[in-house]
């Protein structure tokens, strides 16, 4: 046997062993503890049962809200600068401003330049000198859009975490959609309620001193709440159970540049009732930390530096602009930066999932047996080799699912069944070609050589096109359809590896050992 043949045989043996290693935990549960791999193949919701929710984030609404806020700020700034606007109104995504005094125009432009970098003038040729139309800069709109989806994602994730479901998926899809997958949840009502409800924003003092206890044993009137620390890790806080204020007393919050020494700041404004409450709280607790709790998660816990009695306060810290923006959003809206709309809801019961697996496996078994039997009868020796490649192909394909953590859906199983039917095509092409070459009077060795060589072009071109359709399918589809596309593409790759290169090794090994006068194809 030549060295190249031995190497290739070794390579295929290694691939086979690897596939078995990855696959065993899927079929033997639990796998022995010494086994190097423990992750079984992940099943899609259609196979294990569960709930799939698709939410749309109303991004235009978020842009409108941003514009409204900018308009309010502008009105305040203009009032502070003693420039009266006779009208200031929003029409769609454009703010119309008409000045009472045309001479103040340059002053207004200064204010806009200094304080409102996100606003740009809309050219309106027939506008009077005192009229201006303003809109958000495209970059600013993009930022709002990106931000909104990201924030909605974060909030949903937080809420789902509280729901306590194993391996939930919360993912952005496109620019304005969010997919939530809850395996094993049959009754999505509670989850939907949790995701869709308005957020609860509370202010609570952090527990202090020995009576606060520890995280393991919180003291009387103290609870443990979690938040994300600066490094993004989960961090536990000891928080007094008593809620001092809720978010409804906040009227506004915004990011302000702050001072050079302290960095970004978040300014907030309270209503009259809130101003009174907050004044009392802060006067009594200077030096303590006040936790800002959103839906039971600690968002921030700033230290109270001085009594805040005027209804206006500022939170400073080592946050960058985005973090400051997030905190301002939390304070302002409580939670969701834009309304969420449930677009799609799919629930699969566990028995249907089990039934689907059973039926998928049955059709797989029947299809495979039929194909294997046919190849064996029609091509005898060559068919047996092709069948070996087919079995190896399925093994590698399934192993790849386990190894790469792809999700197997029912269409995915169908994809595997389909791969079985189509993978033999390469072998059929090669074997037919070998037969033709043999009929031309070539020796078995030459016929095999020519068969592989000539068939390769057809195999390559045909598989490239099928692979392309798989890629397009992946791009188009979601969920189960993607699962099918992945299987289709993976199946093409593995069938090329086993059907073309794998069978070739076998022929090479046989041919190199002895001079063949016949070959069974």
């Amino acid at each position, binding site marked *: 046997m030549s060295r190249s043949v031995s190497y290739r045989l070794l390579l295929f043996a290694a691939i086979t062993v690897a596939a078995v290693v990855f696959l065993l935990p899927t079929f033997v549960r639990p796998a022995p503890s010494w086994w190097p791999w423990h992750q079984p193949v992940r099943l899609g919701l259609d196979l294990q049962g569960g709930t799939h929710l698709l939410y749309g984030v109303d991004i235009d609404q978020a842009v409108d809200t941003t514009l409204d806020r900018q308009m309010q700020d502008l009105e305040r700034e203009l009032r502070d600068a003693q420039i009266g606007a006779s009208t200031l109104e929003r029409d769609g995504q454009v703010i119309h401003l008409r000045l009472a005094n045309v001479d103040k125009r340059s002053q207004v432009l200064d204010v806009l330049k200094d304080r409102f970098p996100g606003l740009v003038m809309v050219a309106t040729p027939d506008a009077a000198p005192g009229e201006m139309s303003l809109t958000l800069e495209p970059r600013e709109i993009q930022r709002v859009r990106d931000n909104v989806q990201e924030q909605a994602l974060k909030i949903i994730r937080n809420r789902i975490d509280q729901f306590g479901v194993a391996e939930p998926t919360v993912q952005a899809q496109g620019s304005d959609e969010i997919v939530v997958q809850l395996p094993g949840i049959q009754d999505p009502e509670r989850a939907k309620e949790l995701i869709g409800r308005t957020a609860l924003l509370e202010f609570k003092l952090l527990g202090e001193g020995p009576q606060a206890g520890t995280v393991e044993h919180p003291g009387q009137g103290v609870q443990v709440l979690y938040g994300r620390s600066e490094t993004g890790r989960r961090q536990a806080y000891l928080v007094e159970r008593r809620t001092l204020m809720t978010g409804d007393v906040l009227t506004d919050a915004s990011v302000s540049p702050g001072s050079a020494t302290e960095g970004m700041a978040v300014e907030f404004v309270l209503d009259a009732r809130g101003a009174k409450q907050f004044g009392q709280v802060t006067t009594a607790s200077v030096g303590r930390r006040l936790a800002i709790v959103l839906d039971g998660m600690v968002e921030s816990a700033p230290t109270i530096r001085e009594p805040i009695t005027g209804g206006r306060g500022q939170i400073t810290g080592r946050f960058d602009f985005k973090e400051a923006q997030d905190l301002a959003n939390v304070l302002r809206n409580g939670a969701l930066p834009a309304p969420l709309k449930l677009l799609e809801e799919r629930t699969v019961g566990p*028995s249907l999932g089990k039934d689907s697996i059973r039926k998928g496996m049955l059709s797989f078994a029947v299809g495979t047996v*039929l194909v294997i039997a046919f190849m064996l009868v029609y*091509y005898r020796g060559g068919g047996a080799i092709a069948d070996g490649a087919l079995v190896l192909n399925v093994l590698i394909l399934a192993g790849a699912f386990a190894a790469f953590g792809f999700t197997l859906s029912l269409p995915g199983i169908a994809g595997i069944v389909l791969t079985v039917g189509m993978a033999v*095509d390469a072998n059929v092409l090669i074997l*037919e070609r070998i037969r033709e070459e043999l009929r031309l009077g070539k020796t078995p060795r030459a016929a095999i050589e020519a068969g592989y060589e000539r068939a390769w072009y057809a195999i390559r071109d045909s598989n490239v*096109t099928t692979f392309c359709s798989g890629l397009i399918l992946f791009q188009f589809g979601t969920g189960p359809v993607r699962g099918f596309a992945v299987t*289709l593409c993976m199946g093409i790759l593995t069938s090329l590896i086993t059907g073309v290169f794998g069978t070739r090794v076998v022929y090479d090994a046989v041919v190199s050992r002895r001079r063949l006068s016949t070959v069974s194809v």
Partner: protein
Amino acid sequence: MAMRSTGQPEKAAPVQHHFFEIIPPGTNIDFVGMRFRMLIVSWTLIAIGLVSIYLHGGLNYGIDFAGGTMVHVKFAQSTPVADIRGALSGGELREVVVQNVGQGETEFQIRVVGSPQSGSAAVADSIKAGLKARFGEGTYEVLRVETVGPKVGKNLWRDATLAVLAATLVMGAYIALRFELRFGIGAAVALVHDVLITLGALSIANMEFDLTTVAGLLTVVGYSVHDTVIVSDRIRENMRKMRRETLATVMNLSINETLSRTLITSGTAVLVTAALFLLGGPVIHSFAFTLLVGFIVGTYSSIYVASPIVLYLEKRQVKRR
């Protein structure tokens, strides 16, 4: 003009080969000569399909595309469709479609297309309530509930159309690049042909047209081209070998030479999709049906549609010269 089949080599082969063959070597069916008759067959099939789609008022859109609510239930005992319809009439459920899926009269898909003002969740709830009131709890099991908003459906429709179009263009372009432009055109026409006939078959069989059906269609697109490539590849090879023969002769020879491969591969592919169709369960029923029809039509079109188009384009070229 001499044409020799490859079956009888001049030199006596040292070994007599005995193969198990469906198509004996030297088979020479005049496929190219039949192309006009087949053109009629193709057009007839397409026309029947389109008429069926027209008469049905469009395809049988699942809620994926139309938006709406679907509840998939399984009864412990066989239950007449009329009983279920009766249980669901009245209230806000107006246009309820009850379809028996799977074997026996136990599994049903209840669909309400479109969502009312009160929201789609309400529809699912009132279906469940109606079933509970009529049959009582425990006599049936809710296997699946799906609710899709109208906006999603519209987006899906657009995405699906785009995907099929993109696939057609990409495949055509690839073949035009690897072979010649006319082969690319031939493959693209064959592909549209396959998609149209498959859509017609879906309509005639009243199969639900949903997301997975589109996945099936795209797979058919891939398969159809796959098959066309194999035949085209042989035509190209033979064109080099036999420069003096007419394209029609080369084509006929090539189709005949690849015929057994075509039949065997289509055979195995159809075999496994038939297994999926018969045994795979109701969830992928329309998907398997799409593949089954598409594969058969795809095989047919490689022989009778793609090649004649190439020939037609060749003749036009010759005439212009």
